[in-house]
C-alpha cells in the first residue's frame, strides 16, 4: 500500500492551530430569517435569475441558472418567499456589493421534489455532469471553479488519476478534517461517481499526516464498504500541500506545466467536500445548499457548523459563542490566503470555508516593514520556484511586462514568501495589485481596440457617404449646365452623350422629314394609311414609336 512520494520545492512548517476548532462535531447552524444568496459565488459568469420578488420557493429549488459554459446555478437554501433581487454587500476583498436574491425563510424548511439517481452506472458521463451542473456544485476548497467542467476531460484526454484533496494545509481550518471524520462514506460515494464521470483509471484520497483520525476514518469506511480501488495516501504536513499543483507533484511525481492544467498530465484534482456534494446531488437529488464552515480564532467557542448558503456571517458569530474582546477583524479563509471581511452582514457563499476572527495579538506579531535586504529567503520558501524578490521589485515599480516575464501568473498567492521575509514586506499584496492591474489593462486594451475599429468604420462610412453625395451633386450639376462640362472623364462624356441624344430626339420630333415634301396624291394616301396602321399596332408599345419613324422613309 505504500507509495513513493515526491516533493515540491519550498513550503513551510506552520503552527496549525487546528486543535482550536477540530474537537467538536459538526452541528447544523440555525436557519436565518433572511438568506442573502449571491448570483455569483464561483469563477465564471454570474447565474441568471429564474424567480421574481414575491414568489414562494421550496428548499432546493433552482433560483438562478448557469449562464454560459463557465457558470453555476444557485438554489434556495430553505423554503420561503423571495423578497427582492438587489445589490447587497458580499464577502469580497473589495467590499463592493453584488446582485443577490433575498429569501425570507418560512421556518418550514420543506424540500422541493428531488430526483435521486438509483444507479449512477446506468448514466453516461455527460448525463452525470449535467446533474452536477444543475446542482450548482463548485470547488469547495476555496477557488469555486464549477465542478462539472473539471469532470469533463474532453474527447481526447484520458484521465489516469483522480485525486481527492483532503490535505487541508492552511492553519486554523478544520472543515475538511471534520467532514472526513464524520462523513467518509459520502466522500467515497462521491469519489466513485466522479471517477465514473471522468472514466479515470485510478483514484486516491490524499490527507496530510497531521490528521490521523481522518485517515483512520476513511480507511475504516473503505474497509467496511469493501472498496479496494480507492487508495488513501498519507502526505507530509507541509504548507501549501493542498495547492493543486503541489499535491499532484507530491502524489504522482509529475509536474503540471506552467500556465497549464492538471488534465494536461492526465490528472484531475477535486476537494473532498466537493466529492461529498457530488454524491448528495446524484444519489440524494440534493443540490448544493449548505457547506461546512470553520469558525475559529478569537471566538469563545471555535467549532464547525453546517451552514446554509446565504446565511449572514454576523449571524453565525453568536453560534460560536461570540467574538472575544480583542478581535480586530474577520478573515474569510485562513491566515495565509484569506482576505479581510469588509461587511459582517455579507453572506456565506459556496467558497467560504472558514471565518477566522483575527485578534490584535495575531495581527501585531508582524514587525515593522523595512527595505528588502535581498536575503533570498523568499525564493527558498516559494513552492512554485519563483523569484518573489524580483516580482516584488517589478510590481512595486509597476513594470508589468517584467513582472510577467518572471511568471507572476504562476504565483498561487500562498504567502510563504511574505511569511519568511525578515523585512516584513507585504509581498503578496504587491502581486495581487499587479495581477488585477494587468487584467484591467487587458480589458482597457480590448475596449480601445474596439473603439478604434468602430471609429475607423465610422470614418470610412462618412467618407463613402461624402463621396456618394458628391457624385450625386456632380451628376445634377452637369445635367443643369451640360455644355459647360469640358472635362474628359467618362462621367462627363456620358452626360454629354446623353444630352446629345436628347437633343437629337427633340430635333427629330420637331421637324418633318425632307422626303415627305412634293409627294403625289397616291403617295400621301398610302402614307396616311400606313400611319394609321402603325398607330393602331403600336398603340401601347410607345417605346417603339421612335424606331417607327424610320420606317416612314
Amino acid at each position, binding site marked *: 500500500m505504500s507509495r513513493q512520494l515526491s516533493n515540491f520545492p519550498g513550503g513551510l512548517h506552520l503552527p496549525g492551530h487546528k486543535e482550536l476548532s477540530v474537537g467538536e462535531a459538526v452541528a447544523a447552524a440555525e436557519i436565518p430569517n433572511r438568506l442573502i444568496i449571491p448570483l455569483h459565488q464561483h469563477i465564471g459568469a454570474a447565474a441568471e435569475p429564474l424567480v421574481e420578488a414575491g414568489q414562494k420557493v421550496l428548499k432546493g429549488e433552482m433560483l438562478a441558472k448557469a449562464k454560459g459554459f463557465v457558470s453555476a446555478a444557485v438554489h434556495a437554501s430553505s423554503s420561503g418567499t423571495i423578497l427582492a433581487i438587489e445589490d447587497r454587500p458580499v464577502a469580497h476583498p*473589495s467590499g463592493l456589493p453584488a446582485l443577490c436574491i433575498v429569501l425570507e425563510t418560512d421556518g418550514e424548511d420543506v424540500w422541493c421534489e428531488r430526483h435521486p439517481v438509483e444507479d449512477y452506472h446506468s448514466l453516461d458521463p455527460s448525463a452525470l455532469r449535467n446533474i452536477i451542473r444543475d446542482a450548482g456544485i463548485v470547488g469547495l476548497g476555496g477557488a469555486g471553479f464549477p465542478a462539472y467542467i473539471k469532470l469533463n476531460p474532453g474527447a481526447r484526454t484520458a484521465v489516469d488519476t483522480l485525486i481527492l484533496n483532503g490535505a487541508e494545509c492552511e492553519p486554523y481550518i478544520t472543515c475538511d478534517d471534520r467532514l472526513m471524520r464524520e462523513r467518509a462514506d459520502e466522500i467515497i460515494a462521491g469519489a466513485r461517481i466522479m471517477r465514473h464521470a471522468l472514466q479515470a483509471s485510478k483514484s486516491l484520497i490524499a490527507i496530510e499526516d497531521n490528521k490521523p483520525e481522518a485517515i483512520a476514518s476513511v480507511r475504516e469506511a473503505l474497509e467496511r464498504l469493501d472498496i479496494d480501488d480507492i487508495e488513501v495516501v498519507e502526505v507530509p504536513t507541509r504548507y501549501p500541500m493542498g495547492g493543486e499543483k503541489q499535491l499532484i507533484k507530491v502524489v504522482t511525481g509529475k509536474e503540471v506545466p506552467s500556465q497549464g492544467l492538471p488534465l494536461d498530465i492526465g490528472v484531475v484534482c477535486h476537494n473532498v467536500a466537493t466529492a461529498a456534494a457530488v454524491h448528495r446531488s446524484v444519489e440524494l437529488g440534493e443540490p448544493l445548499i449548505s457547506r461546512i464552515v470553520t469558525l475559529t480564532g478569537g471566538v469563545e467557542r471555535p467549532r464547525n457548523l453546517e451552514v446554509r448558503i446565504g446565511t449572514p456571517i454576523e449571524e453565525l458569530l453568536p453560534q460560536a459563542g461570540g467574538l472575544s474582546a480583542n478581535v480586530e477583524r474577520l478573515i474569510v479563509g485562513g491566515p495565509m490566503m484569506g482576505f479581510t471581511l469588509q461587511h459582517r452582514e455579507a453572506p456565506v457563499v459556496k467558497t467560504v470555508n472558514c471565518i477566522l476572527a483575527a485578534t490584535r495579538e495575531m495581527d501585531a506579531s508582524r514587525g515593522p516593514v523595512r527595505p528588502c535586504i535581498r536575503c533570498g529567503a523568499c525564493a527558498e520558501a516559494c513552492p512554485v520556484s519563483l523569484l518573489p524578490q524580483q516580482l516584488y521589485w517589478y510590481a512595486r515599480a509597476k513594470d508589468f511586462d517584467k513582472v510577467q516575464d518572471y511568471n507572476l501568473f504562476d504565483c498561487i498567492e500562498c504567502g510563504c514568501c511574505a511569511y519568511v521575509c525578515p523585512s516584513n514586506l507585504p509581498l503578496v499584496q504587491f502581486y495581487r495589485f499587479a495581477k488585477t492591474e494587468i487584467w484591467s489593462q487587458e480589458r482597457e486594451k480590448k475596449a480601445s481596440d474596439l473603439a478604434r475599429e468602430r471609429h475607423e468604420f465610422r470614418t470610412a462610412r462618412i467618407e463613402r457617404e461624402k463621396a456618394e453625395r458628391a457624385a450625386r451633386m456632380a451628376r445634377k450639376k452637369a445635367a443643369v449646365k451640360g455644355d459647360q462640362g469640358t472635362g474628359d472623364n467618362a462621367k462627363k462624356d456620358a452626360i454629354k452623350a446623353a444630352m446629345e441624344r436628347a437633343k437629337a430626339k427633340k430635333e427629330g420630333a420637331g421637324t418633318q422629314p425632307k422626303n415627305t415634301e412634293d409627294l403625289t396624291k397616291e403617295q400621301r394616301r398610302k402614307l396616311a394609311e400606313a400611319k394609321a396602321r402603325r398607330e393602331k399596332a403600336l398603340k401601347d408599345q410607345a417605346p417603339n414609336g421612335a424606331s417607327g419613324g424610320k420606317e416612314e422613309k
Partner: protein
Amino acid sequence: MLDMLTAILAIAGLAIVFGLLLGYAAVRFKVEEDPVVDQIDSILPQTQCGQCGYAGCRPYAEAIAAGEAEINLCPPGGENTMLALADLLGRDPIALDEEGKPQPKMVAVIDEDTCIGCTLCVQACPVDAILGAAKQMHTVIESECTGCELCVDPCPVDCIEMKPLEETIQTWKWPYPVVVEQRKR
C-alpha cells in the same frame, strides 16, 4: 599558383563579408513608415475625443510620427500613455500639459424623457455608440462609449450627462500597497 588561390579566397571572403553586412543593414535599417504610426496608435487610448488638438487618435499618432507633436497631449491616456510613447520613440518623458491624474472612466447617459430625437449626438459620436433614429428617443451603448464627451455640447436640450463608470467586483483592482519602510537606526 598558391598566391592566386590566396587572392581568390581573400576576395571571395571579402565579398561574403560585405554581402552579409549589406544584407544585415537592409534588414536592420529597413524604412518602415506606417508601422510606427500603427504602434503609436495602438498605445493611444482611442477615446477619439480630440483633446489633443487633432481629429482623433490616429491623426495625433501621425503627427507624433512626423515629429510635429509632443507626446504629452493626450489627457485621457495620462501619464501611462506618455511614458509608453516615450519608451516606444526613445524620446524623453515630458510632464503632462495639465493635471496628469487619470480621470475615472466616464460614460454618457441620455435622459430619455427629455431627448427630442434630433440626432445631433449621433453625428457627434466618434464610435457610433449612440442608437436612435430621427424624432425618436436616443440611447448610449454603455460598453461602446469611450467617454469622449463629444456628444454633450451638441445636444440642444442638454439631456446628456457624463457619469463615472461604476466599479464592480469584476473590474475592481487591488490597491497599490502602502508601505512605510522603517530603516534600522
